[in-house]
């Protein structure tokens, strides 16, 4: 890394700390201002006044919100994010338990759809207006337009209920205690439909971006020159044009890496996938303040870091980009 770049990254990281502080303060205020009471969940339908008072005191909810915020910040700086009301466990434990399934689902789907999308974009750009191009165009439009809950249900109806190829729900078979390779195969079978559902939207976006970028780059002078000096068309596309065309793709993928950790609420609900998206959803309904804050903090951090990394990758891909 050049000294310029190092200084740039350090400055961005310093800004990030203040940005995160803002994320905490704003979110903390917002969720405490929202109507609803976390004790409702704990009390069920049976709590009396004494129970509500005792639980408020136990969780410090009876103190002024500014004091609660200050206490939260003090804890957060020491790496203490409190206890989830619903789980009765440290927030960090609860979130960490959900990370592996989330990263698996989101990572596989992001990687697959990016590779497939760039490839499809490449192929269709070189055969613009062909039957293949048109069918990919229509297919990606449909994929982009379908809401996840609907696409997911259709995939289940076809591939699980009708054909019986894949299970309907879950991450692993509930009856078997598979080990080794058998476990991996079982996991992949459970992964197939949720990944397909999630990838539809992303695949469409990447394909269209790559195709448009490639079309533009291939029509530029440098591509024509490369053709003129006798380079094969495939080489012109992959070695010369793609590197420029792929820049917007980097931006989109970079943004998505930030949301990798947030999971995908709808897909996780439909396929009973034990990821972070569902945890966030449950925590919201339960008004589980400490858990909500923990998730917001994690997501905030990831988005900020992903943005910084994206900018650095940009500079690496495009030598004209200079940061100072």
């Amino acid at each position, binding site marked *: 890394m050049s000294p310029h770049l190092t200084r740039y990254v350090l400055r961005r990281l310093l800004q990030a700390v203040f940005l995160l502080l803002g994320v905490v303060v704003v979110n903390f205020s917002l969720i405490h201002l929202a109507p609803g009471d976390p004790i409702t969940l704990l009390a069920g*339908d049976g709590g009396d006044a004494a129970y509500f008072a005792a639980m408020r005191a136990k969780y410090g909810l009876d103190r002024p919100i500014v004091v609660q915020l200050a206490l939260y910040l003090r804890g957060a700086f020491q790496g203490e994010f409190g206890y989830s009301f619903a789980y009765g466990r440290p927030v960090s434990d609860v979130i960490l338990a959900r990370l592996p399934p989330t990263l698996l689902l989101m990572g596989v789907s992001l990687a697959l759809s990016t590779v497939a999308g760039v490839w499809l974009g490449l192929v269709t750009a070189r055969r613009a207006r062909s039957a293949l191009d048109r069918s990919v165009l229509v297919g990606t439009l449909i994929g982009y337009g379908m809401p996840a809950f609907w696409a997911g249900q259709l995939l289940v109806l076809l591939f699980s209920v009708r054909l019986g190829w894949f299970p309907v729900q879950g991450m692993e078979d509930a009856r078997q205690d598979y080990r080794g390779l058998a476990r991996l195969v079982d996991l992949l079978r459970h992964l197939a439909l949720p990944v397909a559902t999630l990838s539809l939207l992303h695949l469409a976006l990447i394909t269209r971006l790559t195709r448009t970028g490639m079309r533009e780059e291939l029509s530029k002078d440098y591509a024509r020159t490369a053709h003129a000096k006798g380079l094969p068309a495939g080489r012109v596309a992959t070695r010369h044009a793609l590197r420029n065309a792929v820049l917007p793709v980097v931006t989109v993928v970079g943004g998505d890496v930030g949301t990798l950790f947030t999971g995908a609420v709808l897909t996780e609900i439909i396929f*009973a996938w034990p990821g972070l998206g569902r945890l966030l959803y449950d925590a919201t309904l339960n008004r589980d303040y400490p858990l909500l804050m923990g998730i917001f903090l994690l997501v905030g951090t990831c988005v900020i870091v992903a943005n910084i990394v994206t900018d650095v990758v940009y500079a690496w891909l495009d030598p004209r980009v200079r940061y100072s």
Partner: protein
Amino acid sequence: MARRFRFGTRRGGSWRVVYLVVVGVLTSIPVAAAQDGTPTPVAGGTMVVSIASDPGHFNPAITTGFTQHVVADSIFNGLVGLDENLQPVPDLADRWDISEDGTTYTFHLHPGVRWHDGAPFTSADVKFSFEEVLLQYHSRTAAGLTPVLAGIDAPNDLTVVMRFTQPYAPLLQRLDVTEAPIVAKHVYEGTDPTTAEANLEPVGTGPYRFVEYAQGDQVTLERNEDYFKDGLPYLDRVVFRVIPEANSALQALQQGEVDYAWNTTPAQTEILASAEGIATVNAPASPGGALCINTLVFNLEHPPLDRPEVRQAIYHAIDRERMLEQIQFGSGRVATGPISSRMDAFYNPDVATYAYDVDRANALLDGAGLTADADGTRATLVFPHPNTFDRYGEIIREQLGEVGIEVEDVSLDFNAATDRVFVERDFDLGIVSYCNGTDPEIGVRRVYDSRNIRPIPFSNGAAYRNPDVDRLFDEAATTLDPAQRAAAYAEIQAILAEEVPYVWLIETEGLRAFSAEFHDFQHWSGHFAETAWTGAGG
């Protein structure tokens, strides 16, 4: 013996019969005596159970949460159980004596019971569970027993004495594994029971032992070989799978991935009825929610709802048969009053009733002087409700519109709606599933007692005040004489049906759908799997 996932086939087939016979012959574990004509239970097999949300922990003594109890109740026991009619039967206590004056209950514990870690279960565990855990953190038990409990004694290892400040009739109805699970003193002593490590590695006395928990995904339990009830349980393993979406749960059930679903909905009744190999049951009770009535709450502090004729008119204007048919898909009954018709001992059918009658509703509103303005509107009422009651909101808005009452229908998430009605009190109409519990003292009184008008969820939301009703509730709670109690409750029901501080809409039931290869569930209880068995080898 685990069942394999089979591609694209329905469960069933002739090999299954062969399998059943083989399993039956090979099984050497003694089974409970079968009655003539009923199949004999066989031991073994795995049952996969779908639940809608993640339990998060397995300490049933610190929560009234449905999901926690559906899972953890199988690991624990109460002093008494509840039979199909919600009447007390022995569990950890073999028998009990009640003093003449009804203030002292003496429980004789089952000898030789051991915790899952091998330690002996004694009366000290019972005393500890109540004093240190249940009365602090189990909201319903704390609210119900704290005002009347004088003390708990453990005179010897197998005897527990509960003393009350007054005769206390409903005690036996609130000691089952959901209302008062007994946890181990040696495990929880010196810990904060809400955050103790043991909440994730529970040690109980129950029919199943805890094996493994994958957060947000599944919980695995296995048979307790040393269970104190001879021969029970039958199943080798019970796996609880978290499937939040009811449609996914139904598909998983149809595909054989799941054997028992707690979260199918009445809207799926028709699909379930035609599904091969799937049985359904409507249970009047669930762990923590017995005999529930979907109830419309009038804010009596907001005119014109302070006038009984207006409330009676609204009652007449609502077609509850239609709600039963279109929202509940026939599951449940049209309610007639504050006490469920299934609570045989105390239900009074001879009360004022309000059939769907638009003319009568209009006449009552005219009589109350609530005349229509130029647009034909007599009044506008704000109706905030949880989004789970959206269908009720639609029908109520439509039907009250027909008698000139405009309803502003506000759909909120459950927590926000509860806050708005009970704490903010910013509403004219509200809707709540009020559960009777297993005795009127447990779940009915709180809704009508004027001393329970508080900014607390599920209290007396209407702010209904009637000294006679308060007095009658006190009378019924302080005698053990069933006839005297029934008379007091009968009078209460008659008064309330005249004054209608609430509209009792539908007595709801819990729909359970399960593989027809499984038998003998206790669908109404947290111990639903204690006696369950499968002929299919699971």
